């Protein structure tokens, strides 16, 4: 048991190994406690370095419900700063993104530099001789760190380092995504499509690594593919070689490596790409960068499809951020990425492929969102409050890294998220 708002919440009674109680998506007190435990103590994704490439660049982001500014200072160092004037709390950054020399609070005119330093206070003499401006710099999370440009912040002074939080098997997946670039860097610089729904943030988290739903929720998308290619892909069938994996710490992925390596269509596509001059150049540059074996594997695997708990999803071409707003309201920002050093043709193709499924008029994502809304409606029926996450429990295996593996239509990935969620919610801490 853990305390939340002076009231006891019995998480053992809410999360079982094979099922989850509907209250975890609905209750305000549980949401409040999630914000404290998951979003104010654990590592939370803020943004990618490439989104603010130049000195003075900034974008707005969130640490749970708290608005922050992700900014790059004059010297080129990035910062995560709370979007709150240290005088009387007005937010100091109104634009979602841009470039600036500093943040001026327009209420009483205090001026902060892009590294958060309080630079000027109007009529400062009224504060007396002992006024120490340096104590009133913008506040910041005590810990900020990154992996391959993905920047995270934690409100906890101590605890697991980011490297411990995102352990080997999860890093391996991020590496697959970034190594598609001949320079090993992705660029999150081509805009964002955005969506919102009336439902809990964890519905998006569960769905990203759900290998069971595509052949049903996305029937219309797969029909479109069938109209073009003559067949439906088998990647998400009940006998597919694809897997779902619980990477630990709530991180999870759909692992299509085995499927892709065995699929002649993937090989054919790569061979065809090399028939073009730009495709050949991309292939050659990738071999030059990573060696032939790794380059071919990276191309065959084609990135990743994963969640970094709690609010980052990396899949296909995109970097996706989940923004919880309330128990029943969520926003999701989806940002396609470019591959640094890859030919323009490759990067344009990535944008178009992204749009085909994920844009507001694309063929896929809004059918997922429709399901989130439908789940939210169904959750109002309390006669049987349990959601069943039992699929494949009996056939789960564990590898030498402790990664739990199931067939891609199994619910091994969601079980991993819920197991971690429960651990975090039950931790003995003073809130």
């Amino acid at each position, binding site marked *: 048991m853990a305390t939340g708002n002076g009231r006891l919440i019995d998480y053992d009674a809410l999360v079982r190994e094979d099922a989850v109680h509907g209250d975890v998506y609905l209750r305000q007190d549980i949401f409040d406690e999630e914000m404290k435990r998951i979003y104010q103590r654990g590592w939370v994704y803020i943004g990618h370095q490439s989104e603010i490439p130049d000195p003075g660049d900034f974008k707005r982001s969130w640490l749970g419900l708290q608005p922050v500014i992700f900014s790059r200072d004059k010297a080129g160092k990035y910062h995560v700063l709370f979007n709150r004037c240290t005088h009387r709390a007005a937010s100091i950054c109104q634009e979602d993104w841009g470039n600036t020399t500093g943040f001026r609070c327009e209420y009483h005119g205090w001026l902060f530099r892009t590294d958060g330093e309080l630079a000027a206070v109007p009529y400062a003499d009224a504060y007396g001789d002992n006024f120490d401006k340096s104590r009133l710099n913008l506040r910041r999370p005590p810990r900020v760190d990154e992996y391959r440009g993905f920047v995270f912040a934690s409100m906890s002074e101590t605890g697991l380092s980011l490297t411990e939080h995102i352990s080997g098997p999860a890093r391996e997946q991020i590496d697959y995504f970034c190594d598609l670039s001949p320079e090993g860097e992705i660029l999150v610089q081509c805009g964002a499509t955005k969506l919102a729904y009336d439902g809990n943030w964890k519905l998006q988290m569960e769905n990203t690594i759900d290998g069971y739903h595509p052949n049903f929720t996305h029937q*219309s998308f797969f029909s479109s593919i069938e109209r073009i290619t003559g067949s439906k892909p088998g990647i998400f069938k009940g006998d597919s070689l694809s897997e779902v994996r619980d990477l630990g710490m709530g991180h999870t992925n759909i692992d299509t490596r085995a499927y892709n390596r065995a699929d002649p269509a993937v090989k054919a596509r790569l061979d065809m790409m090399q028939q073009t001059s730009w495709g050949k150049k991309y292939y050659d540059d990738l071999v030059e960068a990573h060696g032939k074996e790794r380059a071919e594997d990276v191309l065959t695997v084609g990135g990743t499809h994963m969640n970094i708990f709690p609010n980052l999803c990396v899949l296909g071409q995109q970097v996706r951020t989940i923004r919880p707003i309330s128990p029943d309201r969520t926003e999701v920002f989806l940002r396609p990425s470019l591959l640094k050093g890859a030919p323009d043709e490759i990067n344009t193709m990535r944008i178009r492929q992204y749009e085909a499924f994920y844009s*507001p*008029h694309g063929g896929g994502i809004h059918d997922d*969102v429709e399901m989130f809304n439908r789940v939210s409606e169904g959750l109002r029926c309390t006669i049987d409050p349990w959601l069943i996450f039992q699929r494949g429990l009996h056939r789960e295996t564990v590898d030498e890294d402790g990664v739990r593996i199931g067939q891609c239509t199994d619910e091994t990935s969601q079980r991993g998220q819920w197991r971690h969620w429960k651990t975090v919610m039950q931790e003995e801490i003073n809130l």
Partner: protein
Amino acid sequence: MSALRDKVENFLYKEARLMDENRYLEWAGLYADECLYWIPCNEEDYDPAKHVSMLYADNNLLKSHALRLNEGKAFAQQPKSRMRRIVSNIEIDGDEGDEEIGVFANFTVTEIRKHEQRVHSGRSEYKLVSENGSFRIKYKKINLVSIDEAQDNVTFLL
């Protein structure tokens, strides 16, 4: 009122009616074989080869889009949106007899789906080519007022 303006208005009103009534395939038929249908995202003007769009479609993709919606398995449109839109502020760049004319028009669509009413507005830019006394759409670009907003569901025709 000029004959050209009459013709343009009639065409835009017909397009609006087909969109309002979810007549996907007839709507797709309004487009020329060589066409571009573009809904920008985040900003109004940029190089679509370098920035994401809400939709960036040639005739093939547009047909595929229409067929997918028409099949009845696109669950974000099950049930379908019920809509009526007003098209106005029409500006015409061209003259009677021109092979191709430019048109600008504002629209506001009132949409209800699952008992929730939403309003979406924007400005469309067209390039229309003459065909059999009417037009086909060679180019349509839609700048939504909500170009940079998190939207719940805009999967109907625009």
